[in-house]
């Protein structure tokens, strides 16, 4: 085999892109073994080894640019939350991607997505002026000086026809609970979380700046997000760029309202519901109980716990920009998730993230299990029980 050459310059460049902890890694390999890619067969699974990829980063050695390697990680944080060295693995992945994407070498399939986010402020190729189309037929308040919460709706739920129901349900629930909230509208841009994970640092900075300026100009103090991804970047990445607000996920607000008695739900006894913890709500943000409390109040018997749940939840494969990846059937994490739910005798698999919903629906369809298992976003279940 031809020897590979170590380049400390390359290593230092990757570090400067944000892989600050890559040197901490002692190469124990725990991450590789915890990675959901170990649970599926296929080319990506065979090629992608996060321990190895970080090793290449540590040595500034070539070999990590292969798309199957560099863009495989779903940033689910299963590895990171268990790394004995506290390595910020997701940051390292992001920085290694940035070292390639930043040099203008984004893979072809990602270019339209990044391009759309640049041009339209959303990655879904939706025109900016259509951002509020989902509100049709619903009285959605506009955020004003006296509004308590700004409701930030994820681009996915603004444009994806199936996902708009999520936004609509959340609005219904917030209204029923008597929350003071409002939206800003077409000037909002994508939160940029997934763009940054894909390595487009510049794009992220642009989106974030525009949002920060907008929100601050409107006098936003508190934000409710519909997606855990927006929640995470607003709380973890925006503050150092000047965006400092009190941000919570819709499940948290609603759980509080149920507790206070402001929101009353009727109980539906007809279905067994399992809950899938979204990575960005659970492991990344530490919110595990709020969605369960809500289900407790809306379903007889509460949640059916999946065998891998809470901190050990299995990723749907939609994070880290993987929502745009083409994955052959039989290699999708979501298929394992659907099987998990069916194994537990659940009739409905609920989640609290538009990406998860999207990925699980795809998986359920590819397995042909639509008759046996319904995939739902939690807000939809709750809104039906108002």
């Amino acid at each position, binding site marked *: 085999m031809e020897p590979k050459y170590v*380049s400390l310059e390359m290593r230092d460049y990757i570090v400067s892109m944000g892989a600050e902890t890559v040197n901490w*890694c002692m190469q124990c390999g725990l991450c590789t073994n915890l990675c959901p890619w170990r649970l599926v067969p296929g080319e990506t699974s065979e090629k992608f080894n996060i321990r190895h990829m970080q090793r290449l980063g540590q040595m500034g050695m070539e070999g990590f640019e292969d798309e199957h390697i560099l863009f495989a990680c779903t940033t689910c944080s299963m590895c990171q939350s268990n790394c004995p060295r506290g390595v910020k693995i997701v940051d390292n992945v992001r920085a290694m991607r940035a070292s390639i994407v930043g040099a203008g070498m984004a893979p072809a399939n990602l270019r339209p997505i990044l391009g759309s986010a640049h041009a339209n402020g959303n990655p879904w190729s939706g025109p900016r002026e259509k951002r509020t189309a989902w509100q049709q037929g619903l009285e959605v308040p506009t955020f004003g000086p006296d509004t308590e919460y700004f409701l930030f709706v994820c681009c996915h739920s603004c444009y994806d026809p199936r996902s708009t129901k999520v936004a609509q349900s959340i609005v219904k629930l917030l209204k029923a609970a008597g929350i003071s909230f409002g939206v800003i509208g077409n000037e909002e841009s994508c939160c940029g979380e997934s763009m940054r994970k894909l390595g487009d640092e510049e794009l992220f900075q642009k989106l974030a700046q525009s949002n920060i300026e907008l929100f601050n100009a409107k006098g936003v103090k508190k934000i409710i997000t519909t997606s855990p991804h927006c929640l995470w970047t607003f709380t973890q990445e925006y503050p150092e760029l000047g965006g400092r607000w009190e941000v919570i996920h819709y499940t948290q607000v609603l759980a509080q309202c149920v507790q206070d008695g402001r929101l009353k739900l009727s109980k539906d006894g007809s279905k067994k519901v399992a809950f899938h913890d979204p990575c960005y709500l659970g492991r990344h943000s530490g919110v595990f109980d709020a969605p369960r409390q809500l289900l407790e109040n809306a379903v007889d018997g509460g949640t059916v716990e999946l065998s891998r749940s809470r901190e050990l939840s299995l990723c749907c494969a939609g994070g880290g920009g993987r929502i745009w990846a083409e994955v052959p059937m039989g290699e999708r994490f979501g298929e394992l998730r659907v099987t998990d739910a069916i194994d537990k005798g659940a009739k409905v698999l609920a989640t609290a993230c538009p990406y998860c919903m999207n990925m699980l629906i795809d998986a359920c369809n590819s397995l042909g299990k639509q008759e046996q298992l319904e995939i739902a976003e939690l807000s939809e279940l709750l809104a039906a029980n108002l």
Partner: protein
Amino acid sequence: MEKKIGVYLCTGCGIGDALDVAALAKVATGEHKVPVCRQHGFLCGEEGRKLIEDDLQQGVNTMVIAACSPRVMTDVFDFGADKVLERVNLREQVVWSHPAGDEDTQMMAEDYLRMGLTKAKEMEPPVPFQGENLSKRILVVGGGLTGLTAAKEAAGAGYDVVLVEKSDTLGGYVKNVHSVPPLGPPYEEPQSFDVEALVSAVTGSDKIKVYTGAQIQKIAGAPCMFDVTIQSNGSSVSERVGAVVLATGSVPYDAEKLAHLGYGSHADVVTADRLEAMLKEGRVVRPSNGQPAKSVAFVLCAGSRDPEHLPYCSAACCVESLKQAKVLKQQNPDMPVYIFYKDMRATGNYELFYKQVQKDGVVFVRGSVTAVEDDGSGALTVAAEDVLTRAPIVSESVDLVVLATGMVSTASLGKPYKAQQPKEGEEELEVPADTILVSNLLNLEYRQGPEVPALKYGFPDSHFICFPYESRRTGIYPAGTVRAPMDYARAMDDATGAALKAIQCVEMTSQGKAVHPRAGDLSYPEFFMQRCTQCKRCTEECPFGAINEDEKANPLPNPTRCRRCGVCMGACPERIISFKNYSVGMIGNVIKTIEVPEEDEEKPRIVVLACENDAYPALDMVGIRRAQYNPWVRVIPVRCLGSMNLVWIADALSKGIDGILLLGCKHGDDYQCHFVKGSELANIRMSKIKETLDRLVLESDRVRFEQVSITDYGRLPQILDDFAATLENVGPNPYKGF
């Protein structure tokens, strides 16, 4: 001593319920005509003890206590060293491991009482050995970190110390180091080490006499009576000391042998100690041109863990290299530093240090180095098989390559000592001699060789779990890197431990007591010289080299070197070596006192010679766990299986005993024998048993050797029952009734 025997039968702990105690008492009063025989339901209680004490007032001086195992209640049943005491184990090894009320259980108990009585009749209270002109001073050989620490600690505990250092100044290797790895939290930075403070603590102490530029020319004698001849500046002086701490340290492995790592062919490939010296000077340069080195690569395990060089791990070089890398990074955080390693052995808190050095951006490459080459511009590249990327890799060019050379014990620097060739007509010795290397450190006047025997790779170490700090020479305690590879922190601990062992030795020896593992034993071997045939078995087989020889090959025992194992007693074909309370004849008579039922009774008898240190306690544990085994066995504890004399086997077999089971410790490289070689010697002697068996026309299956450790209690009933089953197949011993 005029003996008056008292027998005390305890009926507590279930003994009274399981046995016919009245019948048992008859063995004592009837068969053995013992004048005093008492029973008590709780012999170890206050009342029970008083019962015995009252008899002592009435002249009883020899007690046979038939109760629990001799391993328990030792304090309660301690009536002073001037009395004879024998314990009969009715609890653990009879009633707790055999069915109550059974005829065979009763026979077993009665036999054990007979055996105890026989032994008690023959035992004498030991008279401690008292040498002359005893010294409690401690000699420390070597004035480096370990030696200085040992001297300081021993002096701090109130003992006079003689410190001998070869070079002209004290301090050793640590005197020349830039810094040492972190010794305390947060374990992230190297720290300086104040060796001067240690040196002045030693030179300033009025308890420590220091010889520098000095060497040991000769050590004669034995613990508390060592006469040391020290050669110092051309003249020799003599000092009498009690014990020795050997702290001569180690030397780096010879880098000339590491040509495959570029040493010798590239001037900029240097050893770790060379780099350390440059760090100390404050100028790390490339030897090739004298310019400052701007980038460095370390190659670890240079010569270590390599079957071609040192097969062992040198233990300190990983952390030492981390330290050097960290110092370089402290001086210039941007300096490219590589560490090529096999495994990063940074254990314990050093893990935190390793982590810090990783965070500092040192590049760690795991894998074997395949080449160190000139890049064409005069700088060097290091190529390796990188395990972690599964690819061959090449480093960027570096100015300096540092080889972390391994540690070689100073005790290993010497040719093997030639054991004396047997003279014409003498029997060849089958027992493998210990490895003794003539390293010119202690120059012991010992018949088996002039230095401390080595365990592995020339290190004079011992079993690391069972016998830390012990060597095979009583009163001599190797410490620091002469004993095993270790780092500074561990060497200091080691020094303290060895000083403590030396102190124990002088204290015990001066009272005539044995040291570890029979600590406190007052007996010692005595030789009935008139019948000695000068066969040299005892002098060669003693695991501790306790016995010297005169020109005529007469054994010259040194009781303070002796550990009281009885290996010499087992070795002597003339049976002239004995202890006051343990001898060949005594155990022979114990065996003979076992009642052997007639063949048609179908009650076989098995003698179990069980090592007192592991096998016997394991047998007790069988009882404690209430596991059962066959009632045919009669267990006789022995000090060490090496004390077994072949005549016992002949005695047993010619009396009609059906089989003999020897239970000893594990032998071999990772031996667990408390007396190092005893178990192995017993195994070797086994081969000679065949002669005895052939002479008696008996099957070789009748004698079996099993290695058991103290944790083998789960396995023991099976071992005992399997042997009984084998004997059943072989059939009864035809000598029954002869």
